[in-house]
């Protein structure tokens, strides 16, 4: 096998997508939107529910669900158990999950060159 480092590049998700997040009870949602339509298949392939669950390990207590919106070049993630009980119960600064959006954009992808 050829040198792996030479065939892959690291790309931060923030270069491929923008995002907005909100809350439903103790669940945060992150809508991840491709900055260009041609980036959408990359998001579908690489930003899986399992990958996002690994990214947020230690920050959420429940599972991650993913939904596809190809019409909007967007993915919607539900992060369960993300908000310390959510709403009024939560002690977190981000009790309503407003900035989980940019936290997801910290994700780094290993993409073929």
């Amino acid at each position, binding site marked *: 096998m050829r040198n792996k480092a030479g065939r892959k590049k690291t790309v*931060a998700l923030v270069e491929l997508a*923008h*995002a*907005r*997040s*909100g*809350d*439903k*009870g*103790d669940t945060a*949602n992150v*809508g991840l*939107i491709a*900055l260009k339509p041609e980036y959408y298949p990359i998001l579908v392939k690489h930003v899986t529910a399992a990958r996002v669950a690994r*990214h*947020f390990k*230690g*920050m959420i207590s429940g599972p991650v669900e993913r*939904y*596809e*919106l*190809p*019409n*909007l*070049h*967007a993915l*919607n993630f*539900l992060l369960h158990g993300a908000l*310390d*009980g*959510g*709403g*009024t*119960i939560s*002690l*977190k*600064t*981000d009790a309503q999950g407003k*900035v989980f*959006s*940019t*936290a997801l954009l*910290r994700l*780094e992808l290993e993409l073929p060159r």
Partner: protein
Amino acid sequence: MKSRPATVRIAAGQGFWGDWLEAPYRQVTGGPVDYLMMDYLAEVTMSILQKQKARDPSLGYAKDFLAQMERILPVVVERRVKVTANAGGVNPRGCAQAMAETARRLRLAGQLRIGVVTGDDLLPRLDGLLARGHELRNLDTGRPLSDVRDRVVSANAYLGAGPVVEALRGGADIVVTGRVTDTGLTLAPMIHAFGWRPDAWDLLAAGTVAGHTIECGAQCSGGNCLVDWERIPDLANVGYPIVDADPDGTFEITKHPGTGGRISVAGVTEQLVYEMGNPAEYITPDCIADFTTIRLEQVAGDRVRVSGVRGRPATDKLKVSIGYFYGYKAVGTLVYAWPEAYKKAQAADRILRQRLADLGLKFESVLTEFVGADATHGPLARGARGARGGGAPLDQLPEVQLRVGVRSPDKAAVERFTREIAPLILNGPPSVTGFAGGRPKPEEIVAYWPALLDKGMVEPCVEVVEV
């Protein structure tokens, strides 16, 4: 039969209780609009209003709404702009009465009809419903409401567009409601104007998508927009969104000319995915909207066309939002300065926690955040990975705010916690400031209990009164 209008223009004037006070006035004076839609009710708002009503039976609605209506009523009457607002909270009749007095004071008597939508308040009927076998199980945990029945402070069914349409048909110029869905306030004017049938699911879904797009006010017209945020023009003068709706269910999102902000496909998309669950099943009392069918197109500057929306029949349930007393919480903060700001804040947290333990205080939760280091992105912002991802090296931070929150059913424990913050200024780690706000106050927690109820159990009531 009256002729139907070719289009209808609905302007968003308020995205939540506490939104920009200038927005409603700017929306009704900045150009022609047919309707002004104002959303006031978040999930916990009803319990706050229920408490206000318990203290004074004439209260229990969003008082901001009255002040805003006082300012715009002369314009609204002159230009025949109709208003839909869920500002009535747990006392829509009281709200309408107060507004009628305001209108008479402004010498607008005889020129205005107010519609009042009630029937959403289930608090007086709760025991009857439970006795008849409606368990109102928590949608998240599956537990029956009987678990917390003695602590319930508010219970409201989410009504849809139907009763608002009925009020408009009855000649109301201003419709004041209790817990009507945010989307219903925008959908109702379309149903009324275009005569959409109650089973025209694609049309109802389109109107629901329109409602979702503008229900958070400027959040779809350039506010809180991440994409290209620095180049979004003149947010100081931001234009709130307007829906230009067609009878066939297509609509365009725009804003008044000469205002700031931006209406773009990217910005509208951000709002569409906001607080989204399963996008193929956006459930409201009126229909199920499928957000995976939405097509967006930039048709002009600051104008996005929305088409293609498909819908499915509504369910036979209504969502019910119940508030119940949960316990107490308090949050204390102190600010530590360079050098070693982060280490000092960490040391202060350890000392504080030891003192709480030594006092034998029991909490359901104690949460520490270091604002400036990890409060928003947690461990993702820490260490080498965080520095590469834009985080500053933690030992060089110019300042860090220690933020400690506690939660407990025991008010005395939370009270005692609030007295343990200030002493750290003189008997803890050095270079500390930022305590001018004084001792934190224990806060009552009213938690949210979402449930479903058979639609047949809720009967909306509509009245239209002449001012």
